[in-house]
């Protein structure tokens, strides 16, 4: 079948502003949007620019605004979208070119929450052991692939770009509730800031956007509760 693929194009060296261009692409219902983008780039317009790496929903590099919602181009199928598909870069981020956005601010926020295990105790001879229940406490948030689909779907982030955003809070959650980690207090202090968890307005856009089906809003509210519990 033929699919009308509308893509928001922008080349800062040529264009004054982003503009839509439409491509008629032959596609099957099981094709991924990423296949369609490859078809355009390889056979119609080689200047089309987008990110992709693994193409299997693991690396998180091809999050885009597809038919009005953030999704991974390599996961969403044509049959889920219909014959008219629009693609724009994820929102609230500076556009470098076409569908590529500058992710530096996103990763800077990610680094802010200390996304690594902190434990100054002497390194044990074998692994740091953990019960099944302790592992389950943060199991959901270990699945984040840092695609930024959640953060860039959040109205609070659009309105206040300094907000740490759902992805950074999810990454913090993964370590705050890890029984082996000892820096939860430091992370909670960071997230209790003006640009931390209080900006969440429970719109659940992050939950519907997450390609890994993480309960992002639930994680944010668990961190919020942990911050409040420190003072009670």
């Amino acid at each position, binding site marked *: 079948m033929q699919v009308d693929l509308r893509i928001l194009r922008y080349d800062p060296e040529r264009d004054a502003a982003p503009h839509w261009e439409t491509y008629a692409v032959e596609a099957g219902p099981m094709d991924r949007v990423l296949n369609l983008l490859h078809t355009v780039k390889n056979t119609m317009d080689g200047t089309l620019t987008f990110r992709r790496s693994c193409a299997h929903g693991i690396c998180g590099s091809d999050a885009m605004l597809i*038919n*009005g919602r953030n999704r991974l181009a390599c996961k969403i199928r044509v049959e889920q979208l219909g014959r008219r598909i629009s693609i724009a870069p994820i929102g609230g981020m500076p556009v470098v070119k076409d569908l590529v956005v500058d992710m530096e601010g996103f990763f800077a926020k990610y680094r802010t929450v200390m996304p690594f295990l902190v434990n100054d105790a002497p390194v044990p001879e074998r692994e740091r052991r953990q019960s099944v229940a302790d592992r389950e406490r943060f199991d959901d948030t270990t699945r984040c692939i840092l695609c930024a689909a959640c953060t860039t779907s959040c109205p609070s982030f659009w309105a206040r770009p300094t907000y740490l955003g759902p992805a950074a809070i999810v990454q913090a959650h993964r370590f705050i509730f890890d029984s082996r980690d000892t820096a939860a207090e430091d992370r909670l202090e960071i997230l209790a800031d003006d640009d931390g968890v209080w900006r969440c307005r*429970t*719109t*659940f*856009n992050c*939950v519907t956007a997450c390609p890994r089906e993480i*309960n992002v809003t*639930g994680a944010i509210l668990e961190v919020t*509760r942990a911050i409040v519990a420190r003072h009670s």
Partner: protein
Amino acid sequence: MLLRYRGGAGMLAWAFHRIAGVALFLFILLHVLDIWLAAANPGLYDEVLTVYASLPGRIGEALLGAALLYHALNGLRIIALDFWPRLTRYHLQLWYACWVVFFVVGIPGAYLIIAPALGLPGLKG
């Protein structure tokens, strides 16, 4: 982005909450003004009351009640989510429950507010 993004029910719930909140704030400003009139200009205050009692005025009051009711019910939903984050798995069902209560309470409430302007029987028959 706000108008371009196709958010789900959660985003709608938030948008309605904001709109209802702004509407309530504007009414409070209006209410402060009309109460001030009661002392400053009693004649004008009486005229304002007749506007409130007219059909458009009562429809406005019914809409005000709707904004208040939605804001209160969704506010309870948000409080529940804040206290019990596990309920986030059921946020849609909670929102639907808000709407059930909204209509069960709101429809008779709106009738009682508007009925007198239409000459229909109210609470006092």
